[in-house]
């Protein structure tokens, strides 16, 4: 923040741009209107918004739902890259760190896709080159003919150690969930170390990371409760939040929903999350709980961005809300294509 105090102009400039972009995102009412529309009408609406350029560019190659899917991914990646270009000083570093989670997602999509024998074009459609691995690198990885070669091609990258360690196990079990957990654990420990390294503004970034970890751990706990098969809770725990490893394991052992929530509330400090936990006491549908937790996270981030108007928070709020806009549009179009009832689709929307 010293840089911010010396010359706050670039910080104010970027944060205002993020606020204007956030205001341009599709509002709640528009989603409700879209729920009653046909797929072609939704496509037309999307075409009239910020996604016009991508839909026009890709219109000759793709059509229908594929066109929307690719256009949304391209727009999201373009938007994230643009933000990295305009953010100044330490905000750029934090933004890049935050966006590194897309590297994990992209690598896992490629590995899972290749293992399941998906077509390259299909895998490419859902990649979002928003992290440190750009479109060229991802294309090169896609062109590799085996998971081992994909991992070898990443030699020198920060994810390489975990990938090479976890790949044999993943291939043997046919599941990449352990690898995914390990990659996220590494990611969070790295960004926590970065935020705690004394970089100005790191404290505010740390506030976001810790809350993100808390939400992730709580989501995992609810997911484990909804699962019918036994899983090793310890493996899924992410360090850095308010819950300790022992708390996490102990909470997972509690069978009664009300007792579980009461015990969880003892550990949680954030008021909005506590209010939600009270509401969740009688809710047993896993999917809905995750959406509600995401909503709470976004609300809390919004609050932080208002408390610290010229910090990393307004940027992070926009990045998250943009991500969920794309998720919502994808859910809407996919739902409409599969002829799902409107009530069912609306359950998947984060609005």
């Amino acid at each position, binding site marked *: 923040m010293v840089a911010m105090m010396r010359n*706050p*102009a*670039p910080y*104010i*400039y*970027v*944060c*205002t*741009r993020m606020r*204007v*972009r956030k205001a*341009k995102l599709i509002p709640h009412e528009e989603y409700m209107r879209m729920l009653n529309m046909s797929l072609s009408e939704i496509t037309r609406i999307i075409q009239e918004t910020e996604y016009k350029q991508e839909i026009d560019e890709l219109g000759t190659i793709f059509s229908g739902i594929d066109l929307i899917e690719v256009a949304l991914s391209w727009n999201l990646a373009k938007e994230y890259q643009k933000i990295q270009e305009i953010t100044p000083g330490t905000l750029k570093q934090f933004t890049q760190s935050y966006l590194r989670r897309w590297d994990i997602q992209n690598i896992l999509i490629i590995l899972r896709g290749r293992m399941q024998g998906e077509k390259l074009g299909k895998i490419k459609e859902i990649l979002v080159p928003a992290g440190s691995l750009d479109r060229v690198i991802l294309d090169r990885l896609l062109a590799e003919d085996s998971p081992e070669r994909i991992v070898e091609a990443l030699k020198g990258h920060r994810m390489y150690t975990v990938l090479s360690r976890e790949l044999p196990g993943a291939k043997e079990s046919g599941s990449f969930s352990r690898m995914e957990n390990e990659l996220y654990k590494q990611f969070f420990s790295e960004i926590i170390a970065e935020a705690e390294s004394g970089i100005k503004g790191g404290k505010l970034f740390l506030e976001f990371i810790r809350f993100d970890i808390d939400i992730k751990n709580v989501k995992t706990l609810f997911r484990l409760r909804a699962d019918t098969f036994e899983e090793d809770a310890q493996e899924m725990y992410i360090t850095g939040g308010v819950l300790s490893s022992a708390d996490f394991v102990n909470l997972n052992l509690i069978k009664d929903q009300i007792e579980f929530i009461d015990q969880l509330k003892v550990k949680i400090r954030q008021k909005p999350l506590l209010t939600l936990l009270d509401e969740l006491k009688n809710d047993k549908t896993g999917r809905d709980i995750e959406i509600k937790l995401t909503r709470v996270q976004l609300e809390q981030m919004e609050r932080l961005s208002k408390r610290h108007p010229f910090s990393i928070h307004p940027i992070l709020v926009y990045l998250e809300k943009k991500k969920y806009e794309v998720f919502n549009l994808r859910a809407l179009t996919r739902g409409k294509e599969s002829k799902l009832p409107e009530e069912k689709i609306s359950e998947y929307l984060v609005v």
Partner: protein
Amino acid sequence: MVDVVSNVTAVEMSVEAIKASQIGMKAIAAAIAISTTAFAAAWAEMAIGSAAVGATAENKDIFGLVLLLTVIPETIVIFGLVVALLLIF
């Protein structure tokens, strides 16, 4: 006799010095009023201007409005100027 004359001269001189000092102090006060308000206006315009440029970059239609908002802190300097003029005259 000589002592009385010299005392009167000294008193006259100190009165003159006080008057000159008062004028000087007024000038310094006026300068402070102008400089601090000018600095405050500049700082405020810098912040509003940065936000205005950022907002205009995203939405060109609001240029007229943000231009107006950017010059609003100029009123702070006008207040400073009024105070400075009242001090001097």
